[in-house]
């Protein structure tokens, strides 16, 4: 994992002092609320429903046990003893005091963490694949370039006040696991004639106008990634709309200009800076890459795994193939039924840190599916890991299954929400609490957002649930067939929205249609692609005027 040098450390420390001073001036009335807002946002501090909400960066998802222990102690000392892992490699605290945030930042800096640019209209945290560096299907480890990009984004002077937030994701595998088609910039590492480079995608995004990104460049040699990103950002900074926050993302600009015209602007801009000093040197790449050298793996045989059913169930769901024989990447589920998806208690953070130290070289990852990964576990240790994880409530065998849903904080915490999302997640988990049934249903992504901002990625869920507001009442719109990955696409709306109490039944009916229609070995998505939306729609709205909501509800927003 990347270790700070003197300069990295100096910069985060200076950031802490800068923010401490900003808070002081705000309290003293020297900074107005409007002047303070972007400053606190760029330090991860939102003001939300009950309290400020504080977002801590986990750059490209990499963590270690010391950092996790620090997060545990911060959550106990300054908050209510838990945190929430988001879909963008961040940890959110829901109840800190603004006045404490400078001290929290100072404590984070001790373990090389920060909240820099985790919010606000700036270059955000870079995200990637949670199995980076260990995945069996990896072409190139994206982490060194992610770190180089992290440094480049940090306090970039020209792009601190963009029209809107800007999110970059990198993937280095055949199967994209970083939702790269739905980021402002998505980068696919690839190899061409022995040369390493990126496919550069721009203008993807979820939110109220979900758009799949488009390719601006099929192949960009890696050395040029900073100058090329600067060209994209400069075009966006100057031409992106600033008159309407809902139309300010780069995706709107790309759509308005068309990808050809946009590409032309970027290429013209890039022609001026190409090969300039910001071109990455081999020496710099090597220096950073050395931080991600493989740990001291042992030469191991593939062990025979115990045949205990509940262990096997867990292992089937939680283990990801590793490129080194005898090792596995293990996903610890933060999707225990009845708990807010992505939430983790301080005790669990400590348990996770211990597991990392004992079984995975002290390192950890967080995934955009809001789980935690031990990336380098010996297969012969899996049984022990499982028992300890189980004791800590981290071994729900539901990874990839219906109840491991992605879910945003929703109306319980978020001011922008139309509807609550956590209670819906919990109600669905309660309905599908039978493990055998859950396993029989198989792989399925259910994603829930409390409003069209789409923090819960509902558009790309196989089943997507979106909170909508109907005359001040909370309703939910359902989409089917969305997906992430190489073939990423948006789900289709099934019809009028449903009341909260209907949702478990609705999901149950959707699942039943799948089970009745599926061919052997078909996953939910395969069946959906074969039979289409109608059979699901007919079942869900059975007994109602076709395609109409139950009562004479006003139409969904």
């Amino acid at each position, binding site marked *: 994992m990347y270790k700070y040098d003197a300069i990295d450390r100096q910069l985060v420390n200076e950031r802490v002092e800068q923010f401490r001073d900003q808070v002081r001036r705000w309290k003293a009335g020297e900074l107005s609320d409007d002047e303070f807002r972007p*400053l606190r946002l760029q330090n991860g501090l939102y003001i939300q429903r009950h309290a400020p909400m504080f977002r801590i960066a986990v750059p490209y998802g990499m963590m270690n046990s010391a950092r996790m222990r620090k997060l545990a102690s911060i959550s106990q000392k300054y908050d209510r003893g838990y945190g929430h892992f988001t879909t963008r490699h961040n940890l959110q605290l829901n109840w800190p005091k603004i006045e404490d945030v400078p001290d929290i930042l100072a404590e984070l800096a001790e373990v090389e963490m920060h909240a820099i640019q985790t919010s606000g209209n700036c270059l955000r945290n870079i995200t990637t694949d949670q199995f980076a560096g260990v995945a069996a299907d990896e072409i190139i480890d994206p982490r060194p370039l992610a770190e180089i990009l992290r440094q480049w984004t940090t306090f970039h*002077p020209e792009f601190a*006040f963009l029209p809107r937030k800007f999110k970059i994701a990198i993937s280095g595998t055949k199967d994209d696991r970083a939702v790269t088609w739905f980021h402002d910039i998505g980068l696919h590492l690839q190899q061409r004639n022995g040369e390493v480079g990126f496919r550069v995608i721009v203008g993807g995004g979820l939110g109220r106008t979900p758009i799949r990104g488009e390719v601006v460049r099929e192949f960009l040699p890696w050395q040029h990634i900073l100058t090329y990103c600067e060209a994209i950002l400069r075009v966006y900074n100057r031409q992106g709309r600033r008159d309407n926050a809902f139309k300010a993302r780069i995706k709107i600009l790309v759509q308005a200009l068309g990808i050809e015209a946009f590409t032309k602007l970027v290429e013209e801009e890039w022609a001026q800076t190409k090969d300039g*000093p910001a071109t990455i040197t081999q020496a710099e790449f090597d220096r950073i890459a050395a931080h991600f050298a493989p740990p001291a793996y042992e030469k191991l045989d593939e062990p025979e795994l115990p045949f205990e059913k509940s262990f096997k169930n867990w292992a089937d769901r939680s283990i990801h193939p590793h490129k080194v024989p005898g090792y596995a990447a293990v996903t610890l589920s933060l999707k225990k039924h009845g708990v807010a998806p992505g939430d983790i208690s301080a005790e669990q953070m400590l348990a996770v840190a211990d597991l990392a130290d004992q079984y995975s070289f002290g390192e950890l990852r967080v995934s955009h599916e809001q789980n935690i990964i031990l990336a380098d576990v010996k297969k012969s240790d899996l049984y022990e890991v499982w028992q300890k994880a189980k004791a800590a409530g981290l071994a729900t065998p539901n990874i990839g299954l219906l109840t491991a849903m992605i879910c945003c904080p929703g109306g319980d915490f978020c001011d922008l929400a139309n509807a609550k999302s956590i209670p819906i997640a919990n109600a669905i988990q309660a309905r599908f609490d039978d493990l055998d049934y859950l396993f029989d249903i198989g792989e399925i992504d259910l994603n829930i957002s409390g409003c069209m901002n789409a923090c819960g990625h509902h558009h790309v869920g196989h089943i997507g649930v979106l909170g909508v507001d109907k005359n001040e009442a909370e309703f939910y719109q359902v989409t089917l067939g969305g997906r992430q990955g190489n073939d990423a696409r948006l789900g289709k709306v099934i019809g009028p929205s449903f009341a909260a109490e209907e949702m478990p039944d609705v999901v149950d009916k959707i699942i039943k249609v799948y089970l009745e229609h599926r061919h052997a070995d078909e996953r939910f998505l395969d069946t959906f692609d074969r039979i289409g939306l109608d059979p699901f729609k007919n079942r869900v709205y059975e007994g109602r005027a076709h395609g109409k909501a139950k009562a004479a509800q006003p139409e969904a927003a």
Partner: protein
Amino acid sequence: MAQLIKNRTATLDTWKTLEIVEDETPENVELPTGDVIFPLAVWQARKAEIISCHKRIGLLIDSNERIEDVADDLEYFVVIAVNFPKFVDGRGYSTAALLRQRYHYQGEVRAVGDVLHDQLFYMQRVGFDSYALKDGKDVVYALQKGFTTFGETYQAATDQPQPYFRRRA
């Protein structure tokens, strides 16, 4: 009156900025004498006239205006004032960066408008060298703290064309 910081000291502003008020247009507005900063539209409409009667000329470019449009005229300007209508409107950073990095403009590049303490560091990095700090803000404190927030930087920019990784020992 905004308070001018130039070369890291508080200075008296000797320039006046031409404002176009109601009923005036770039074509008919009266051109004042002395050191004047002219809005881009006035410059474009009255270039010959301005050159003939002004020795020292300034240009005001707003956040939605393109520096490319006057790229051939830059030698006429002693100062180019880049307006920030709101401090969160970050277009002026690119304008300044282009002026310095692409057009190698050597004159004064001044930040005007909603110019606040907490943006000075970034402004200095992209190439501003004078700042009309917004009224009511503490100039002394800005001079003391605003330009030295960070002791090092990662990226290449106008003030430091070499990114940190090329300057490592």
